[in-house]
């Protein structure tokens, strides 16, 4: 459920509401950033910046234009992508190799408390290669479905339905149907 009351309180500069929002979304924000910057220390920095933006720009969230999670997701991806373009990042990550979110998930043996570890492991275990790519681009990298279609040379409709199927499998693994 979208925390509508908390969002309104946040927009009224309520610090308690801000703390609750932070507790609700900080791991998600950090996870998104981590898949982009691939450096836990830098990711933490970017995550802090993202929540400062959330606090400062809370009133720019408009519930009639989309989900609050989607709004935060966009801020997080943009901040992380900005970081990867910074000189400091490029100096630190000279030998950085592009890899998928799956590599991060596969390499992990423990997850943060709110994650259904068994469900996620089950999901990763039978994740199709096409899902790796589509979820990476659409969800973690913030590609539009048009950009994804171009990147994967797939028709638009195919991207849409494949993406749905990939997320459907995730929901099944997590018992969210």
């Amino acid at each position, binding site marked *: *459920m*979208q925390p509508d009351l908390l969002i309104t309180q946040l927009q009224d500069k309520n610090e308690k509401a801000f*703390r609750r929002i*932070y507790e609700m979304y*900080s*791991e*998600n*924000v*950090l*996870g*998104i950033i*981590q*898949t982009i910057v691939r450096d836990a220390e830098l*990711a*933490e920095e970017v*995550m*802090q910046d993202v*929540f*400062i933006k959330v*606090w*400062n720009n809370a009133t720019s969230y408009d*519930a*009639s*234009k*989309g*989900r609050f*999670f*989607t709004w935060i*997701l*966009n801020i997080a991806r943009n901040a992380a992508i900005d970081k990867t373009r910074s000189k400091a990042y490029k100096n630190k990550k000279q030998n950085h190799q592009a890899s998928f*979110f799956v590599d*991060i*998930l596969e390499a*992990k043996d423990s*997850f*943060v408390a*709110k*994650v*259904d*570890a068994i469900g*996620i492991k089950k999901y990763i275990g039978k994740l199709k290669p096409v899902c790796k790519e589509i*979820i990476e681009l*659409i*969800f*973690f990298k*913030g590609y*539009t*479905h048009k950009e*994804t279609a171009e990147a994967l040379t797939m028709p638009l409709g195919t991207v*849409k*339905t*494949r*993406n*749905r199927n990939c*997320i459907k499998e*995730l*929901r099944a693994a*997590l018992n*969210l*149907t």
Partner: protein
Amino acid sequence: MINIEEYISSGILELYVAGALSPQEEVEVTALVNQHPELQQEVEEIEAALLQLSAAASPGVNQESFSAIQKLLRETKVVALPSATSSSTKTTAFIGWAAAILALVGLFFIYQENQALESQLSDQLDEKERLQDSIQVAAKQLEELKIYTNAIRREETVKVKLAGQAVSPTSVATVHWDKKENKVYIDASGLPEPPPGKVYQVWSLKLEPLTPTSIGLLDDFASDDNKVFILPNANTSEAFGITLEPAGGSDAPTMEQLYTLGAV
């Protein structure tokens, strides 16, 4: 009225939650989701799955992070407060002063550099003058040597060798007497350098009776590299002698200080 089943299976809701739609499409989907509880339910489930997926990628939020955010927010707040204008003015003033001081330091260095260059230039000019002087000296000496060489080559020039005397037996000198021009060219290179406050004086001598007549001083002996001196001599000389005299010369020769002597 839309077909809910079809709408869900199109995959647009997954794109909606992931933020992959255009702002226009997002507004449209939001409106439909708010109207249809089935869509609302679907969106919540998609979002729940994606929340799980993104949290699974998290390396684990640092316990300190929230207080770090609060600290950062307080710092930005201070700047944003209207009462903070004075502190921001102070900062501006400080930056201004710092810039002014930096500029002064820079100017001071430029001034010093300029002084150093000027002093260097002045040294160079001195060196140039010194070189010009020595060129002039060399040219003058060369001219003197030419005159000397020409003079001693002339037929009417008489060569008189002056031999060392008791006070300085090793001294020698040569007088070339150009009788036509009434000049003597004295090669004094065989004489020792006179002690300070003393000067060589050249005498024309008549022998019967012995009458010395001064024909001049060997001025600036030490600094004259050629040691060639040209003096006028209109006398009917029978001999020449060179004595060491007090600076400025004497009216009569100091015979104890007779260095060289030679008869024509």
